[in-house]
């Protein structure tokens, strides 16, 4: 093979998920009625903001060689905390501030705090007590959701303050502000992973924790930060979810975990750790969101949507795997 050919092939492989996204959008636009319109594309971006933010935290922990199954429940808890305190009907207590916009930092702080605490607890159990991250965070997945149910009594809170809702309603270039928050997160954390010592250390710990430890990297500290970040970022996702919903319900966000994992894997992050970058994850999120929207618009018999969704996601993951195979042939 010519070096130039190899180079372009490698470029395509490196950014395969973006090409897949374009291909999928083209196919759906051509085949699904009403898919090709600006409103739908705006919907795709808007819908991917919550999942996108959640996937960032998950990706960080996975790159570091661990796992966080609790992100979905943490997001729900953060949403419920914001809902109970700052929503005005249902079980909401409707706390208000003067000036009114203070509710934005206040609710954000509460949410992120909740997430950080759960993340720290997960981190403590994994790092200090040396429990397996899968089982620790699986338990958190259960008990944090249980906490949401317990705190809400199964009821919901609605009508968040207008200052918060504004973020979901106000649009810039046809896309709500919440989506820009997600994009900003991707840019910031991508930079962190690619250009800072912390990001480099996360990747190395994911590759060989013992080697990183022997090299004097404070593995425990780095991992703890990763878990706390994961919890906090999940909480940010929950806050966005609450704003989107204008409140919170006990089952809010249920089922997101599968999509978050799928996005991370489609985005090229290895579940074995040590491999992956965030921009791909964002493409993965957009890809899932496009698939979801297509399913909504196709008007399939409702009973079959779950099978189809599962199989489409599997197909997307499969394509990513084929990439690895081709790459192995190459290098």
């Amino acid at each position, binding site marked *: 093979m010519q070096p130039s050919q190899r180079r372009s092939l490698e470029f395509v492989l490196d950014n395969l998920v973006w090409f897949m996204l374009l291909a999928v959008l083209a196919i759906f636009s051509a085949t699904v009625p009403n898919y090709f319109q600006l409103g739908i594309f705006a*919907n795709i971006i808007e819908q991917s903001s919550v999942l996108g933010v959640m996937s960032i935290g998950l990706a960080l922990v996975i790159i570091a060689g661990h796992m966080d199954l609790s992100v979905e429940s943490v997001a729900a808890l953060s949403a419920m905390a914001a809902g109970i305190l700052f929503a005005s009907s249902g079980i909401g207590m409707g706390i208000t501030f003067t000036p009114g916009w203070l509710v934005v930092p206040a609710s954000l702080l509460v949410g992120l705090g909740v997430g950080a605490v759960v993340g720290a607890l997960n981190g403590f159990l994994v790092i200090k007590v040396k429990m397996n991250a899968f089982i620790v965070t699986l338990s958190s997945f259960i008990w944090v959701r249980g906490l949401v149910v317990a705190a809400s009594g199964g009821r919901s809170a609605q009508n968040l303050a207008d200052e918060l809702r504004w973020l979901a309603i106000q649009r810039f270039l046809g896309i709500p502000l919440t989506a820009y928050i997600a994009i900003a997160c991707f840019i910031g954390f991508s930079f962190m992973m690619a250009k800072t010592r912390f990001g480099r250390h996360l990747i190395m710990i994911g590759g060989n924790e013992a080697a990183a430890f022997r090299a004097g990297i404070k593995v425990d500290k780095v991992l703890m930060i990763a878990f706390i970040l994961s919890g906090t970022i999940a909480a940010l996702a929950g806050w966005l979810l609450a704003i989107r919903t204008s409140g919170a319900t006990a089952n809010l966000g249920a089922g997101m975990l599968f999509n978050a994992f799928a996005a991370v894997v489609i985005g090229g992050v290895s579940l074995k750790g040590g491999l992956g970058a965030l921009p791909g994850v964002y493409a993965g999120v957009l890809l899932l969101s496009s698939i979801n929207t297509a399913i909504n618009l196709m008007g399939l018999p409702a009973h079959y949507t779950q099978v189809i969704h599962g199989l489409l996601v599997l197909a997307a993951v499969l394509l990513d795997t084929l990439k690895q195979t081709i790459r192995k042939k190459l290098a």
Partner: protein
Amino acid sequence: QDKGMVYYMVPTLLDEFQTGSVSALEMFLEQVGYDLTTLNADNKTDLQQSQMNDVIALAPKAIILAAVDFNALAPSVDAARAAGIPVIEFDRQISSTVSDFTSVAGTVEIGYVAAEQVERLLTEKNGSVKGKVLQVLGDPGDPYTLDIQKGFEERMAAFPEVTIISQPAMMWEASNAGTIVSDQLLANPDIDIVFSHAAHLSVAAVASLEAAGKQPGDVYVMSSNGAPVALQMIRDGWMQVEVEQPLYAQAAAVAMFMDKLVAKEPIEPGEYDVLGLPSVVTDEAWGPTIKIPGAAITPENVDDPSFWGNLKPPAAPVTSVE
């Protein structure tokens, strides 16, 4: 004739009532000239919101919404109506914002009917309203089951001699219900009635009773939603009461008013005949509402074809209200 597409947002398909509602709405809407597409939210509030957003972009004639969460969908309802799409609440009422039409049996009311039946059964069995009732909830995070519980316990509060034990079968999972029943039978051997919030939970409950050596009628069994399985168990003698949700009437009412809703004509309060049931449309704060209360199905009336669980849809087509 082809009057256009209507979307039905169903909250889940893991429940026979919801499954039945899809086919009933499809049938009745076809009779008045509309096509129906159903989107399943799989009990996920956020998914249902995304579906609402996408459907709004499709500009259908109307949206029929059975909300996963009664109130969380309010912003989506507002968005759809702002886009000029009429929104009809089906089965699950949203009172925190205005909708174009609401057709429900009333979840709290199901609890009321269940309480009346418990009163009757306990009196038959123990001579007065006293005894033990095991209430099997669907899921502690589901407002639907919580409303039934609220209605039921509100009415039962009048009878201090009745002990109510409540346990959740997480995620409406049948074998969880079976486990609860078999454990509770040992802890409280004197349970008189097992009341499950869905018929499919009663199936597992009955299986546990059978495995514990009980005969039909030893422990009374009742549940709510009127699914075919329940009617079967009533015929088999295992079950005494099922609280019917008038699925056909609820769906037919939506179809009857669809033309008016699409044309954005006002709906007049008053009495209407829905599949032979006299029903009242009232004007509420959240918009015009038709409430068709459920009935109790017992061995005496189990074969009544108007119960949706008998799966005999009415032969005469519904007609639009003029």
